[in-house]
């Protein structure tokens, strides 16, 4: 069974058709990239999957369950977690606190007034594990707002991972980053995909990141699917080259 099946979704904003009859299937363990020029409808498509907006028509099935109209918070508890183009963290708290809060919420402790000693230990261990996985250990007690863009992004990805997602949605994970940060973030995503067997869908602008990481790529243009295939197939596709890659690589 596929993990995620998006079937013929359409979303209009007034007379603008932002997403026009788009379908996509993601298999467990797959890393899928969605690319396209500005205004291609990538972010809207992403918002439809994560429940930020609902489609005018079409369906979204996750793990065999129709979630087309499910609230974002409920999608999270079914294992679908996202990050944002503009990093969304808790800036005035430390990295440790950011992850600790995420782990507590993920463990269902969000309404608890007291934790048993055993639960405190579990939260502590899981937080340490996430700090380690994200390479954030040395910065654990710095305020997130003071960190570099790359470290903030790593914190956000680790917060998402605290939820133990079955599918991680990354919205332009390297947006606005320099060379080194882009490289580090790409490595982190690849590590999560390989080591944790995590299924990931990501939107990306940076072609090198996409061709480096993705198992399969979907190209959107003007709200429609232009092409879909492996990085090799996409690189060789003439319509894609004409519409997007030619311009981007020129």
């Amino acid at each position, binding site marked *: 069974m596929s993990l995620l099946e998006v079937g013929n979704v359409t979303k209009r904003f007034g007379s603008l058709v932002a997403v026009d009859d788009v379908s996509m299937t993601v298999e467990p363990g797959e890393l899928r990239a969605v690319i396209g020029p500005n205004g291609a409808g990538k972010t809207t498509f992403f918002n439809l999957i994560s429940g930020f907006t609902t489609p005018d028509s079409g369906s979204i099935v996750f793990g065999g369950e129709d979630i087309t109209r499910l609230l974002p918070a409920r999608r999270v508890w079914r294992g679908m977690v996202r990050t944002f183009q503009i990093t969304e963290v*808790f800036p005035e708290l430390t990295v440790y*606190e950011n992850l600790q809060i995420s782990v*507590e919420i993920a463990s269902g402790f*969000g309404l608890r007034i007291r934790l048993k000693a055993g639960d405190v230990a579990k939260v502590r261990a899981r937080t340490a594990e996430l700090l380690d996985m994200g390479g954030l250990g040395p910065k654990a007690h710095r*305020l997130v707002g003071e960190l570099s863009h790359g470290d903030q992004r790593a914190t956000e990805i680790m917060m998402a991972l605290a939820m133990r997602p079955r599918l991680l949605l990354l919205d332009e994970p390297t947006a606005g980053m320099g060379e080194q940060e882009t490289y580090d973030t790409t490595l982190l995503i690849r590590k999560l995909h390989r080591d944790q067997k995590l299924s990931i869908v990501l939107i990306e602008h940076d072609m090198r990141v996409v061709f480096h990481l993705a198992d399969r790529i979907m190209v959107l243009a003007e709200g429609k699917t232009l092409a879909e295939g492996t990085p090799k197939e996409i690189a060789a596709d003439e319509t894609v080259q004409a519409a997007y890659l030619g311009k981007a690589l020129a």
Partner: protein
Amino acid sequence: MRTRSQKIVAAVLIWCVLLSMPLWINQVGGYTQLGTRVLVMALAAMALNFLLGFTGVLSFGHAAYFGLGVYGTGLIIKYVVSSTFAGMAVGVLTAVVAAAMIGYLIVHLRGIYFAMVTIAFGQVFYFIAYRWNGVTGGDDGLSGWNRLPIDFGVGRLDILHSPVTFYYFVLFFFAVGVGLMAMLLRSPFGRTLLAIRENERRTRFLGVVVERHIWLSWVISCTFVGLAGALYALLNNFADPHDLRWDQSGEFVIMAVLGGMRSFWGPLVGAAIFVVLQDYVSTMTENWMSFIGMFFVLVVLFFPRGVLGVFRRRIAT
């Protein structure tokens, strides 16, 4: 970030000052009732700050729940039963029930819309108290009653005639309220409230039903504001419709911002400055509020994190 030991030292210092206040307040030109007033206002401002500083939600209508505490207490003692505790219990309960119902209607609003609607609901209660002459005394307020000594069977607590005994009576409830709020803020529930303050969208996308947490924070905040109101009624032996009005809500916000809304004890400092300044300046001029206003503007311009915020930064650097 302050270290744990610095926080403990600060807390010990504050409790020492509060516990010893009746011993020295007369020597520095104050009087016991002034200290009691600081405690009551501080409890209200700290309760407001539970919502403002630690959940990130601004209410401009907290006087409504303060005033319900005031009137609930006064009306019960005047008309129903001559018992200080019964009055307080009904006062607080009235505030909680009103907050729970109104909160349910408004928790989906954000920012300025939330603040405006809290003012609107607050004014409803103000006009009821102002107009319903027969019961509430209208514009003249509710008088003709007073707090009563408390009999424990084994001993008697004369909070009516001894201002010092009443001070410690209020300090007891202040300690309970403040202690409970501190405990809540240190729990996973409290940390989730911080998360909402920091970034509501991220918190929502961690699977938190943000509205439920904001509602709980609102009700907790209003509960302790209601308790402060009940104590305020006992302090004055009087209920004033102005206790319910929007400018009283504004005063709570000013106290919290003045002292520093990012720190737990900030509103206590803000309330102390506000109440003492009000007491001194109002003996000299009718326009005491404009002096408070000027002081407030200076603090906001030069110490945007409040008076305690300055100390925190000093310690950090």
